[in-house]
């Protein structure tokens, strides 16, 4: 919190750049929340970021000393840009949630590193004057804690979404987590009440605190699973924002402060909006009630009925109205393009085809829209579940492709089900239902789906892409 003592034009330009950067962040975020301006908003925010970075490198001064090691800094930026660009461009659209989580973790780690490096440099005059209990120490410790939790949590979320970390649900976990969180806060109080001459003496505690925060971050995300993953990513996203803001407080840097807090608060609201879309409370998500139930599910489900490809093709071709419910299975099979081929073919035959998009279809809200947009499905064909539901009784065939939980009637019928209360696409209202699935596996929430045993339901087993391709061929040959 070094106050500007002397006027210098360099510092003025730096501060002006920060004001511009902050304005660009705000405008960018605002434009990102409208479909038409979203892309420009993203670019505006990026321009703000570049401005802030360049100004910092060339104009920033700390205790009258300009930024050194510029060569190395530029090299680091070059390395980060090259890696970030390649990863961001190469990764498949289906892996988008993991990617957001990964980059979020990087930001958290950077915030934690800053805290670790700044802690031993807290000025001795400040400590002599007000002890360790001052704003700077608090900002550093909070930045360390939140940044580390965000990093560790994001890495676990990344691993889970990528499928190499499973869920771990133990009832006692929430108490363990609560205990660790208390320990972390205890560390902050402990460090701030120490009586020392230089902060460097307390470094061992910083390292231990870092380790505890890593453990907390891992255990915090470990039990959370199912459709709750995007909520967690959004939450961790806002954590990183707050951690960045702590850096802004530490350096009295307005760009970091506004940018960080803005993301912190916008991220929190976004998290709550996502929870609302699933009819779940944030507390429930964090404590992890999800998947705890499920044992109560009946096993007297009955048998499923299959349908042959040619029958399915005939059924679809002679319908008036078809609704497709795409899910993550469609996404992983990369079948969105072939699915669009099918709908074009059916439209040529005079069938009206719509896509019913559940808010949490895919792995993230809006994920499915992104994937279908990639396949050039016209925007008008995508209908949100609330809008399509009243229309379903007039729908001749509803095709579920790789979706499961979002059409599970248990959300309406079975109060003991973990997804009870979640708004769903009321698939069973349709006159006929075709479910394309790889096998009788359960959905991401790991619960049985009674829809598959419904009298109106016919199953079409196989990989979404292959099955759709065969179906397209069948429809063509009719």
């Amino acid at each position, binding site marked *: 919190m070094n106050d500007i003592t002397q006027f210098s034009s360099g510092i003025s330009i730096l501060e002006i750049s920060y004001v511009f950067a902050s304005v660009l962040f705000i405008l960018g*975020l605002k434009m990102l929340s409208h479909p038409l301006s979203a892309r420009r908003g993203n670019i505006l925010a990026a321009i703000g970021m570049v401005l802030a970075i360049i100004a910092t490198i060339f104009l920033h001064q700390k205790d009258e000393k300009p930024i050194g090691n510029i060569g190395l800094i530029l090299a680091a930026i070059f390395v980060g840009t090259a890696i970030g660009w390649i990863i961001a461009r190469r990764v498949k659209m289906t892996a988008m949630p993991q990617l957001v989580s990964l980059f979020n973790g990087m930001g958290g780690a950077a915030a934690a590193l800053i805290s670790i*490096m700044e802690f031993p440099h807290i000025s001795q005059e400040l400590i002599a004057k007000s002890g360790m209990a001052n704003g700077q120490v608090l900002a550093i410790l909070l930045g360390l804690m939140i940044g580390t939790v965000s990093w560790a949590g994001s890495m676990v979320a990344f691993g889970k979404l990528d499928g190499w970390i499973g869920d771990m649900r133990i009832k006692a976990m929430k108490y363990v987590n609560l205990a660790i969180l208390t320990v972390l806060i205890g560390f902050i109080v402990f460090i701030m009440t120490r009586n020392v001459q230089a902060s460097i003496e307390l470094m061992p505690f910083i390292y231990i605190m870092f380790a505890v925060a890593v453990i907390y971050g891992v255990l915090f995300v470990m039990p959370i699973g199912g459709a709750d993953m995007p909520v967690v990513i959004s939450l961790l996203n806002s954590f990183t924002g707050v951690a960045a803001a702590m850096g802004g407080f530490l350096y009295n840097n307005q760009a970091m402060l506004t940018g960080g807090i803005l993301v912190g608060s916008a991220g929190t609201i976004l998290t709550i909006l996502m929870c609302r879309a699933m009819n779940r409370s944030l507390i429930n998500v964090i404590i992890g009630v999800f998947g705890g139930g499920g044992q109560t599910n009946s096993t007297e489900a009955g048998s499923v009925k299959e349908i042959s490809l040619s029958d399915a093709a005939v059924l679809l071709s002679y319908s008036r109205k078809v609704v497709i419910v795409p899910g993550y299975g469609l996404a992983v099979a990369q079948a969105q393009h072939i699915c669009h081929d099918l709908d074009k073919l059916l439209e040529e035959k005079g069938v009206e085809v719509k896509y019913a998009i559940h808010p949490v279809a895919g792995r993230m809200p809006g994920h499915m829209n992104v994937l279908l*947009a990639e396949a050039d499905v016209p925007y008008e064909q995508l209908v949100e579940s609330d809008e399509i539901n009243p229309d379903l009784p007039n729908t001749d065939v509803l095709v579920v492709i790789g979706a499961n939980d979002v059409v599970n009637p248990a959300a309406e019928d079975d109060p003991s089900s973990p997804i009870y209360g979640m708004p769903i696409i009321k698939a069973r209202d349709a006159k006929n239902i075709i479910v394309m699935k790889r096998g009788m596996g359960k959905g991401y929430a790991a619960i049985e789906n009674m829809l598959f045993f419904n009298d109106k339901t016919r199953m079409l087993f196989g990989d979404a892409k292959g099955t759709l391709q065969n179906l397209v061929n069948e429809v063509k040959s009719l």
Partner: protein
Amino acid sequence: MENILEFFLLNRNVIFIVILSIFLGIEVISHVPAVLHTPLMSGANAIHGVVIIGAIIVMGHAETTGAMILGFLAVVLGTLNVVGGFVVTDRMLEMFRKKK
């Protein structure tokens, strides 16, 4: 008690900015269609990459080799957050536009 009051006085500008920014953040995104949740989250993700400024400052004043290594790492991580975040968001939004 006096410490807390003094803290508020010393940091009143910061506290002002924080409170106003919180309201701004809420206001800015409270009417987002669900379609844009993912890109918006990704865009916000890129914006908190502003932490890179702190990394640059740390690196710019690093003197020991150890500090330089950590600083270098912090700048790389911050850049990853910024570049990856913005590029991914752009890629998502690009697809929305193509549909015409």
